[in-house]
């Protein structure tokens, strides 16, 4: 039972971390051109999305 007091917060924290990471990705423009990103992976040149 006591282990729950540890595990439930950990589970929530991990979930929140994922949510936070998603918001960061959204804000940094990684979802601006979803179709383009699918193609860019095939390009050999070094390439990164601009902010």
């Amino acid at each position, binding site marked *: 039972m006591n282990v729950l007091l540890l595990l439930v917060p950990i589970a929530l924290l991990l979930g929140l971390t994922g*949510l936070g990471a998603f918001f960061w990705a959204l804000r940094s423009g990684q*979802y601006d051109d979803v179709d383009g990103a699918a193609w860019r992976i095939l390009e050999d040149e070094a390439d990164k999305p601009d902010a």
Partner: protein
Amino acid sequence: MSCCSPAYDLAVAEEEAVASADPQREELRRAGRGGEDGTVTYVFSVPAIHCGACLATVERALTPLPGVLSARANLTLRRVTVVLDRAEVSPVPIVETLARIGFPATPVDLGDLDQLGRERQSTRLLIALAVAGFAAANIMLLSVSVWSGAQAATRDLFHLISALIAVPTVAFSGQVFFRSAFSALRAGRLNMDVPISLALLLALGMSLAESLTGGTEAYFDAAVTLTFFLLVGRYLDQRMRERARSAVLGIARLAAKGATRVEGGSLSYIPLDEVEPGMILRVPAGGRMPVDARVLAGESDLDRSLVTGESAPVLATPGMRVEAGVLNRTGPLDVEALTDTRHSFLADIMAMMEAAETGRGAYVRIADRMARLYAPAVHILAAAAFLFWLIASGGDWYHALYTAIAVLIVTCPCALGLAVPVVHVIGASRLFEAGILMKDGSALERLAEIDTVLFDKTGTLTTGTPRLAATDIAEGRDSDAARALAARSTHPASRAVVEGLPEGADLAVLDAREVPGCGVEAKIDGRLARLGRPSWVAEIGSPGLGAPETSGLAFAFSGGRTAHVALEEALRPDAASTIAALERAGLVPELLSGDAEAPVRRVAEALELARFRSGQTPADKIARIRALQAGGARVMMVGDGLNDAPSLAAADVSMAPASACDAGRLAADFVFTRDSLDAVSFAFTLARRARALVRQNFALAVLYNAVAVPLAMAGLVTPLIAAIAMSASSILVVANSLRLSVKDRAGRGAAAAGPAQALPPRTERAARAPAVAA
């Protein structure tokens, strides 16, 4: 060009090449936005971008240009964002470079862009979706432990944690539904969001009461997964709409944005809305008339094809009245403004469009029609369950209420919420692959119901550019000379000559000049040669064989025989096969054109169209549509001109080629970017299949309810059963919708083929397209 050759209407490409070379650089400069660090950002709309190779081609071509800090192409929005390091760097080379490599670009008005950004719902929906997804995953984790036997204090703890996650999540992510349900109720209507909101709120409320009193059954997981699934549908729907809108908004603007004013011998550039009647304006070759005007001076050919549907160029003469939007082809004109922008021909058309559009607002989407039946049925069932249990259990309020709420939760139209958007999103992406942009899902529904298709002629059934039909120019020197002369002009007739005559020796051409309204003349081998209007050419040549022709072009060396060139309107590729396919599908095609009877009759005969009307004004076209609609017909309009715009808005559903005028593209539900008219029958077939799938989805959802509702009313549904049943029905509906992405094996080759199948070379294309003599 590689696989990327855009199937882009050539007339547009030409016009844009002219427009980008025109001296109105100031207009281009105004499109830039200065940053704090001195850089200037330009956003260009480049509709020709359509695959990964295009991204690399565009970026590689732009990055080395002087002053370019970064260039990034966006495939989703078909835009290129270019950052220049100083305000002094001219953006003109960027547009020219893009045009040279086959990507005609126009600057995006940043006002439009800001508005688009503000209206951008999809990001907000995506955030709501992410929050709901996070909550659904965590609550499901806790629910699984409860279902697998968590007891007493542990169960209550898990329920309370679930409540702490679920309540804020639904409050945040569910707003979309609450708002829509509220506004529907306020207007006295029922839509799908009413039962959704009710189920969400009741499930949450009941579960809260249950967990606070140490009860065993809570529906937090159901409420949150429901929100999640429904938001997936909403998000997909929204994204599709935004993408199409930004693509349509982006395709080259044809209307002038400003005008060059002539005042006491000096020229100044003024914004369009400052133009007043009486002002003297100069319209450069390649420019469009900013307002209705009267020609004062200058000689030029006017292209009215987008405005009135006339296919042949008209010679501008002093005193002639010209409508706003008419393209000035060959020479600069000085004109006197007769109206301001609010009272021009363009403004009249806009007003007609607005008036025509009201008819379409009456269309009720399938989902809403379903909701009108579904919502009352569900609410009655829940009420019946409540009353039954209240009586059967002898006044046990709690149990009766609990059962009624379970009915509402189980019947919550989760599958119904996905039934339509998933099909439409897949349909939109299939259309997108075939070069067709769709504005919103209801267009696909309306398209499936049509029984009559009205076509415009110029620019829709025909390409709008003439080509060479027949000529008696002698082969060898004469032919080479005519070709060399034609190469000095950008007039569409000259281009037809360049492409129509066989390639020969390059001749030295001296003193070439283009005489607006007449043709091109030059000295070749010391002799004067002319190519142009027959009457003008006849001044120097001796009469040719046969009767002197008045239409088409003529060519002669000074003192030599006058040879004639007949031009014809080239039909759009696959026009005949599209008409035949539509007739096979049981639709009635009809031709409505603003052009004169003779050319309309020729096109109609070439396409075996039995019904056609010529000389139609915009009002006539609307009247025809209204008459058909009054007779019970569902009408689709396919057109490109400004004169078609009101009828595009009036028809039940409408389609326009990418070469259409702004007003036409904005009014149309579908815009097709490839040359082939095949797009019309492809879209129609797809719409029919989409409708069949939507109906199947509704049938599946009803079937699910037929099983789940009796169980719920009998009080047998537990949160576990509800969660499984609801997810299963949603997955079933999505899986069924995915069948739309399966390509038909037979037929449909041309339109269904991906971008790899590009435009064939011009000569081959011209040979393939049947044509009519003009």
